[in-house]
């Protein structure tokens, strides 16, 4: 028997930016490309023509199925692969031809991975590969309906990746969709799939209140035969309840449905999250453990990767920490990291715990030894954590390996070195930045001047400040710095006090104050230089009534920050704290 053939059928509109990538990847895996343009005003049609001569035009009539079926009608192959231009099929794993060679199957659901903002992805199974005898139904969120479920296959590869769309575009799409869906629903009010889509669109627009009702209907009436819809509907409903603060209803839903789907780890995970939000940590941990025990659910379920492993571990750790069991919490954070090195929330928490309970040095050594500092993103985050906790020396050590290699890291190093007394080194790094970057950033320019000030290199400091003054956007900052230099040199500012009013000028000084308070120098003499700097800045700010209140407010803020930490660490021992 001859080998079955596959055709790619797409409908497009203004996809000029993405079409190349999409088609380039796929062109060698298929036999035919059919592209239907529904009204592009850019170069979409031109690009499409580079890949195929089967490019058609279709006048848009608010009906996705009509457009898609139009495309399928023009397909000459046995099978159809339906993609959108913002999707990419990852051909590195999986074999389309092998799939369609299976005589028992007439259609396949492929995994669609939708990447979230935090790097995680949601997995949906979507019916995109089917025999040429099927057609789409539904004007919006069109579906291939198959009567005999036995002919439908599921596969985990190849993976379909869906790139993120701009928020603006997404919102406008949603608005359009809702209008279309309402229209369709008025004609077909009992259509559960339409209800589902309306629910998801409202959810997408942030109107969780409006999403609940349709989603509940779907959940109540859809059977397990349509678990492809039921499972995401379930997840979305829980999420809506959560957003609305209706925790108990969300929990009930989880409870009921988890009995129906004991293998659906996401449900246990969601329940855990809800109990965690309510502060019932012991119960939350039980649910998270069940999520882990359930493991990855079958492909057909709408699953968020990690809910059965690293996410669950992380949350267990967090619950244990909140219950005062930090030793056990740490173990679970380690589990989470082992399961997924790239999810660094547990690392952050672990380090904070180590800082609070052991010592900053040990925390740093722990990170070093376990190799977490090789990744620049992680290293930068840890450095920032050390810096904010008052350990600029350790912050520096986190990033030292990126010296001379990565400009962003070097910028951070300049700051850390400046405030841990390593002034000469900081200035050297500034020189390096000057040679590798066209323009020195404002932050490092300020750090340079501060370093020079502390070194008491007033003339060079002044020269740098004047250079800065030449850049219009940096003028207020430069003026502040000149004032500061003059306070040191001659005891009074260069500008008239009234001019110091400008908020921006004051802000840069307040920022420097904040940095000084994070400084840490072993040598008492050197430490008093930073104290002197603080005193001079305060002196400067006290010279004008407009800035005095800003300074007073800043000091109050600092005091409040300490109070917050006190209360957080000791949970506001009632009446004991002042």
């Amino acid at each position: 028997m001859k080998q079955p053939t596959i055709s790619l059928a797409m409908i497009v509109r203004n996809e000029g930016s993405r079409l190349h990538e999409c088609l380039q990847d796929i062109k060698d895996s298929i036999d035919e490309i059919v592209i239907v343009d529904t009204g592009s005003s850019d170069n979409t049609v031109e690009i499409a023509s580079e890949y195929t001569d089967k490019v058609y035009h279709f006048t848009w009539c608010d009906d996705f199925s009509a457009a898609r079926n139009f495309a399928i009608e023009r397909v000459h192959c046995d099978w159809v692969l339906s993609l959108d231009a913002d999707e990419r099929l990852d051909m590195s794993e999986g074999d389309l031809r092998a799939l369609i060679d299976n005589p028992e199957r007439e259609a396949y659901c492929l995994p669609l991975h939708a990447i979230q903002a935090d790097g995680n992805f949601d997995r949906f199974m979507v019916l995109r590969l089917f025999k040429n005898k099927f057609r789409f139904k539904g004007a919006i969120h069109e579906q291939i309906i198959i009567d005999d479920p036995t002919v439908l296959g599921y596969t985990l590869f190849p993976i379909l990746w869906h790139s993120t769309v701009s928020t603006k575009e997404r919102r406008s799409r949603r608005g359009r969709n809702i209008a279309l869906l309402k229209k369709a629903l008025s004609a077909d009010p009992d259509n559960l799939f339409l209800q589902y889509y309306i629910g998801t669109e409202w959810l997408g627009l942030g109107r969780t209140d409006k999403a609940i009702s349709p989603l509940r209907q779907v959940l109540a009436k859809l059977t397990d035969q349509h678990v492809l819809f039921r499972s995401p509907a379930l997840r979305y409903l829980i999420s809506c309840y959560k957003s609305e603060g209706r925790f108990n209803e969300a929990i009930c839903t989880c409870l009921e449905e988890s009995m129906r789907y004991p293998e659906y780890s996401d449900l246990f995970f969601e329940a855990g999250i809800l109990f965690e939000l309510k502060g019932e940590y012991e119960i939350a941990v039980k649910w998270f453990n069940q999520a882990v025990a359930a493991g990855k659910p079958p492909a057909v379920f709408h699953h968020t990767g990690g809910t059965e492993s690293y996410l669950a571990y992380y949350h267990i750790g967090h619950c244990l920490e909140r219950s005062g069991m930090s030793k056990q919490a740490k173990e679970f954070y380690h589990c989470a990291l082992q399961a997924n090195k790239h999810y660094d929330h547990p690392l952050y928490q672990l380090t904070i715990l180590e800082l609070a309970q052991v010592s900053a040095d040990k925390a740093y050594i722990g990170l070093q030894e376990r190799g977490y500092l090789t990744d620049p993103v992680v290293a930068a985050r840890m450095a920032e954590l050390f810096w904010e906790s008052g350990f600029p020396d350790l912050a520096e050590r986190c990033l030292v390996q990126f010296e001379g290699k990565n400009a962003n890291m070097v910028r951070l190093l300049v700051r850390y070195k400046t405030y841990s007394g390593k002034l000469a080194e900081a200035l050297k790094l500034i020189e390096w930045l000057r040679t590798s970057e066209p323009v020195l950033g404002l932050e490092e320019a300020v750090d340079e001047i501060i370093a020079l000030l502390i070194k008491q290199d007033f003339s060079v400091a002044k020269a740098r400040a004047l250079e800065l003054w030449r850049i219009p956007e940096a003028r207020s900052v430069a003026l502040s710095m000149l004032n500061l230099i003059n306070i040191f040199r001659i005891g009074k500012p260069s500008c008239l006090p009234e001019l110091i009013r400008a908020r921006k000028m004051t802000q840069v000084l307040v920022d420097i104050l904040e940095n000084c308070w994070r400084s840490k120098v072993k040598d008492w003499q050197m430490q008093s230089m930073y104290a002197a700097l603080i005193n001079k800045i305060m002196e400067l700010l006290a010279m004008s009534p407009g800035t005095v209140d800003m300074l007073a407010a800043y000091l109050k803020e600092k005091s409040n920050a300490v109070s917050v930490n006190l209360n957080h660490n000791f949970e506001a021992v009632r009446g004991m704290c002042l």
Partner: protein
Amino acid sequence: MSNKISLCMIVKNEQQNLLRCLGSVQNAVDEIIVVDTGSTDGTYLLAEQAGAKVLSFPWNGNFSQARNTSLACATGDWILFLDADEALAAGSDAVLRRIVSEDNEGYFLKIINFIGAEGCVESCPDLVFRLFRNKPEYRFRGAIHEQIVDVILENNRQARYQIAEDVVILHYGYLNEQITEKDKKNRNINIIKQELENAPHNQLLRYHYGVELFRADRLAEAVEEFTQAAEGIDPNTVYFPKLLRYIILSYYGLKDYDQAASVSKQALNLFPNYADLYYYRGLIEVDRKNYAQAYELFQQALTMPEQPTYYASFSGTKGFRAYYQLGRMAEEFYNEEKALKYYILSLRDNPNFVLALSAIVQILNPRENSEYTKAALEKIFEFCTPEANILMGKICFAEPAYELALDYFSKVDQTCLDSYTAVLKAICLIQQRRFLEALRILEAISPEDAQYPLAKLNKILCFWIEKNRSKVRSLTEELFAMHLSLETGAVVGIIRDSLYKTTSSPVVILGDEGMALVKNIMLRALDLDECQLAEALLDRIDQSTLREYALAVGKIFSQYGYYDQGQSYVALYLEQQPECAEANFQMAEILQQKELLTEASLYYHQALATDPQEPRYYVKLIKLYKKMRHALLSEACRNFPNIPVLQELLEEVARE
């Protein structure tokens, strides 16, 4: 029916206690049987003279046999069993006579155990089985008294027991003066251990074994035994609450806070009104710095109802001790007002609780505010008796507030003071530069007295402060002849040498013992404004020692207002231990005193960064920021008097 009561006892060398015991039972019993297991003092004779029937029974290591011998001789219908270090409380005799006419086989009586040392005696009630019908089959078995409870039940299934809490036995045996030698303790432990090997399922025995181990401070072993004894135990067993408490105390003593906390939680499920459990859990949480939880627990302890006697609740766990702990926690947060309130509540609950009294005195700061402290104390308490005045004197002395201490000591007639207190008084006089009076007291201490070396040392100090080289030299020679420890000797040597300007004297290395003495002496010098003497003393000490103790030395200097010296010593310490939170904190405190507020704030931040678990650091830093804001705004109001918003801000700060 006749209800004759026989008192049965076994004794050995108890001539101190016996009379008190026998005297207390005069009207309560009709017959006294004393079995002497080998006294070498006047016990035998004393017992005979008191009218007891005395028998000799050579000790063979078997408690039961000895006791049963006493039972065999008893002719009464009832047996009352006491130890020599116990006595019947007044009024118990009437109750005793009444209950023996009732239809019970035996009684649990209330015992009050006195524990502690002079000035700090605590009481702990409990129930003990000490009264039962005299029948030949009722005989003691094994090393523990209480086993007779089982024996009686075995022989008489219908036996009914009652609790008679109005019969009170006072037990003096745990008072420090009377604590038996370690050998006797270990002997008891071994005896019980042997018995346990033969009867491994006897939970009661195992419990008592655990208790003996606990008293001998063998906590790890105690925990094992207690845990075993608790296995499968009927929750209604009368010693179950005590058993649980012992487990918790053992883990606490071993610093295994996790286990201690977990057992406490379980125990509270079973006995939710057991005050001791809340109290000890509170202590555990304080050690773990979970102050919020500790606070809740102590507050809960305070609400506990009257504790059933069989809980053997330690006195104060639902009263003065809990208040005291709350006071301590308030002090952690520098909330002196709250702390004082709690300490006063504590003293109201137990006017003899010295810890609370000391804590109050400490807050009042008698060293710097002598008059104020005296007036405040007078408002709350009256110190009439010599004991009270001596106690107050000692509390003030511990601060050290020498002037006020002298005030209290002087209220007591010289002859009432023991030699130790006399020396304390002399020290106070020295600190007032009243050297002649001090010397008079010191000279009266005889060479056989244990305080003689201390007195001698203080004589030297009198002349040291006067810089009288020859007198110091001759007296130190005499002191050397008294076999001092190496370190003390070295310190005495440098006292002598510090009066001489020399550059080549060998420098002395000291450890904890020596430095403790040095710190004390330097403190006294600073108290007398003799900074030079203090520094001369320190000059004689090797740098390595000074570096090790720099933090403590710096603290003492700053306590007495010598901030520059304080700063340089703390800086010295920070040089080698830059990560020491306490050192950073001390530096901050000194800098704040020197009005270097910004520098101080940097060091507070460092202290916090290094140890985020100390409430003191947060509180002090918050106070500092307030001070800085206040200073900033006051100056600003002066410079810009026409800006109302600044005035408002200043008032806001003042109100906080």
